[in-house]
């Protein structure tokens, strides 16, 4: 069996913080995920409405 990695280094090879969003594990991440959903939904709705208006 491979031993489980306990604390992984949050710094990537280039020195930037590579933090994975875990919306089902912490409330701040869930809130951030909700904001992303709102932004993506607004973009998709906007694109579809523009395409409908043009076609």
């Amino acid at each position, binding site marked *: 069996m491979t031993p489980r990695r306990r604390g992984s280094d949050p710094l990537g090879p280039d020195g930037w913080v590579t933090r994975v969003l875990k*919306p*089902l*594990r912490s*409330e*701040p991440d869930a809130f951030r995920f*909700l904001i992303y959903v*709102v932004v993506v939904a607004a973009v998709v*709705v906007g694109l*579809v409405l523009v395409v409908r208006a043009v076609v």
Partner: protein
Amino acid sequence: MEAASASVTTADHEHHGPPPANRSSRVEAQTLGMLLFIISEIMVFGAFFTAYFFIRVVKGDHWFPFHGDVLPVAVAGVNTAILLSSSLTMHWAQTSIKHDNRFGLKAGILSTFLLGLTFLFVQVNEYVHVGFSPRDHAQGTIFYGLTGLHGAHVFIGLTLLAMVTVRSFRGHYSSKEHRGVEVPGIYWHFVDAMWIIVYSSVYVL
């Protein structure tokens, strides 16, 4: 040697009940439970969205306005803003208790509960005035199915929030122990994110 054996004997006598349960996950049991619950809920919503996409994409049927029935897009839009505001107050409550700000916790969680209740009230009011029933046409069935499923989730969320509100006013939770606020908060944000998808697809597109 004798002292060591005496301390072991004392420790053995202090432990009552069965041995502690084995934990195979790094995630706490409460968070893991909510995580699995939300994953199963995503699948339930997925089943309802399958029916929606079947009607609109596979069959290519008309969506609302349909047979003279119109969806109240503006009212639902205001309701969406109310629900999004409730996520903001939920986040405020969680952030407050992390810093031992009891006023922020109580005000935030009470606001969240009241905003959620307002959302549900407007939703029920919309059903009363929308002018068609689930059995009038397939579009109506899917409309009531998706929004009703979401409404049921809001109701569950409000039940959780009611418990958190009561506990907050009784002085529970602290900066060290606030999982009781965090787990319902995760659920509430999930319910809000799901509404954004429901609102965009059912009302707007």
